[in-house]
């Protein structure tokens, strides 16, 4: 899947909010791409835009293309798009309780996409649903098909949601903060499950998270978003060893445990911007310790600075991050 120059805006009473401003990326088969950013950075909106999972209006996909299997998803008719959603591309959301329907059994909800998209008979779908529950690690899967979502715990519910997303053997799985609502020990179980599923199924995964620790543990590549733009993109090892954008560096520095207990945590002052217009400045300039005059005038494009490493910053950050002052 390849995304080029995606722009999403929201028409609100107070004006037009530019939530996603020219996002381009690609994700390959068998790869896990993590999208990291704070709330309001546009990471969820960008990924929801791919399948038009936003209320339109007020949202509007102003420009861009999403090429998936030689088709541009942005230009597809609603009925064609429906054949892609849940079939070729699966979605997992943050809160499993709100993404499952409380009045239908878990089995029914897994069978629904199988019957709609793959035209399976009831019997075959039921068989496959049991296999899927087993695949995501739910004990005595067959007996639990007729249970309702409230009869499962939080971690088990998220496994059910993953089973539904995997039902039609998707090529791409988009997971929006799938472990944020879970406890750490349960999160560890789900992360282990995802590692195992990747080995078995080999689909591409886009994993949205605000937790750099989670991204470090599972991602092949990481994309850092801020103010509706990608500010840095690199392989996981490279991003942590050699962060180049001031925002990425400040974000890593603000984590406890990167320095001693006696040191103060390095916070990033100020607030993320509310973008009411297409930015003609760097979105991070107001909070950036290195901002200079050009950052106020022009929005830096995402440029390749090293093999597989892109940064959107006017500063020529020296290799290895020699200047660490914020």
């Amino acid at each position: 899947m390849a995304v080029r120059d995606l722009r999403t805006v929201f028409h609100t009473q107070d004006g037009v909010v530019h939530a996603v401003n020219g996002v381009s990326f690609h994700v390959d088969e068998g790869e896990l791409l993590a999208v990291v950013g704070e709330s309001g950075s546009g990471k969820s909106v960008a990924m929801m835009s791919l399948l038009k999972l936003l209320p339109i209006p007020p949202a509007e996909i102003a420009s861009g293309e999403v090429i998936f299997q030689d088709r541009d998803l942005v230009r597809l008719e609603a009925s064609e798009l429906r054949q892609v959603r849940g079939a070729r591309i699966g979605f997992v959301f943050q809160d499993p309780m709100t993404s499952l329907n409380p009045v239908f059994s878990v089995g029914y909800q897994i069978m629904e996409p199988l019957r709609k998209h793959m035209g399976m008979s009831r019997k075959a779908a039921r068989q496959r649903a049991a296999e899927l529950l087993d695949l995501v690690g739910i004990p005595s899967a067959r007996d639990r098909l007729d249970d309702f979502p409230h009869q499962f715990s939080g971690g088990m519910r998220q496994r059910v949601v993953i089973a539904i997303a995997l039902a039609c053997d998707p090529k791409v799985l988009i997971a929006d903060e799938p472990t944020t609502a879970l406890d750490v020990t349960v999160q560890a179980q789900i992360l282990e499950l995802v590692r195992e599923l990747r080995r078995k199924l080999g689909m591409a995964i886009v994993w949205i998270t605000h937790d750099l620790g989670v991204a470090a543990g599972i991602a092949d590549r990481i994309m850092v978003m801020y103010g509706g733009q990608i500010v840095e993109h690199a392989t996981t090892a490279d991003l942590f060893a050699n962060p180049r954008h001031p925002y990425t560096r400040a974000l890593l520095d603000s984590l406890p445990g990167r320095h001693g207990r006696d040191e103060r945590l390095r916070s990033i002052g100020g607030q993320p911007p509310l973008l009411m217009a297409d930015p003609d400045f760097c979105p991070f300039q107001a909070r950036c310790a290195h901002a200079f005059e050009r950052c106020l005038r022009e929005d830096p494009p995402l440029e390749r600075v090293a093999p597989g490493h892109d940064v959107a910053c006017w500063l020529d950050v020296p290799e290895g991050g020699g200047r660490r002052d914020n």
Partner: protein
Amino acid sequence: MTTDALDRPAAAVAAAARSATLVAVEDLALHFPVYQGLLRRQVGSVRAVDGLTFDIRRGETLGLVGESGCGKSTTGRALLRLYKPTGGRIAFDGRDIATLEGEALRAMRPRMQMIFQDPQASLNPRMTVGAIVEEPLIEHGVLRQAGRRERVRELLDAVGLNPEYVNRYPHEFSGGQRQRIGIARALALDPDFIVCDEPIAALDVSIQAQVVNLLQDLQRKLGLTYLFISHDLSMVRYIATRVAVMYLGRMMELAEVHDLFRAPKHPYTRALLSAVPVPDPKVEATRQRILLKGDIPSPVNPPSGCRFRTRCPWAAEVCAKEEPEWRTLADGRKVACHFAE
């Protein structure tokens, strides 16, 4: 930021240093009844907190960690007597408050305060910031009107908010600023002890650091004692002096922060620490994880013996029969496990 205006008289600080323990908890229990059926008969109880013994030292930050439903928030609220304990004693500065009622309890309230998780929900949207911070002063009859106004401005300044904002409403502030308002309110009555219940869980990473730095500055300046309830172990490791680990209403381990993180003794502590993602791909690629099976059992009907045994990778026969004693090891830490050595 200046906190000078909040400095206490030296005599008060000296007097407060009498005993090293500020809060001593003994066998604290809090059970919520469960009603069922047409006649709403009590059929059981949720044993949210079930026999805790620990103390909080003056001036320290005691981290309290555990998964959702383990009873950590209930413990914090019980210490402040927002709930009436089912059993046990809570000695606050030498005085048992577990059974206090009415005016006697009210007189103790200014000394212990709380900072809540969700600043949005804990601030009244129809009150100005000034009115929110002033309310505890009015409620407890501290100062006259002019003095209260001055105090509100001092407090806002102390938490890093512009004192000119007194007439604004909570919705005009960001999440981090709202949490500062909550902190100013908690400080209004000059407390000794503050329960911080997940104070940073609702904030973004870059804002969390601002709030944690503020809490630490205030602690140094005012000699505050914190109970820091959190599920974020990396932040607890940074801020806490000692850490207590809870599971299903009981304490599993309590130790100095370095000891706990370097050499956890209880199997649950080990599993919990190994589950925390580390923001370093090299560490993540090589570390050993202890994956727990299943979920936390129901606190209505906890397992016999050791509560953790149903998920413990090292559980033996004795664990189902005997509840492990809350004992002190050679290095001073407390642990409830038959096989802690």
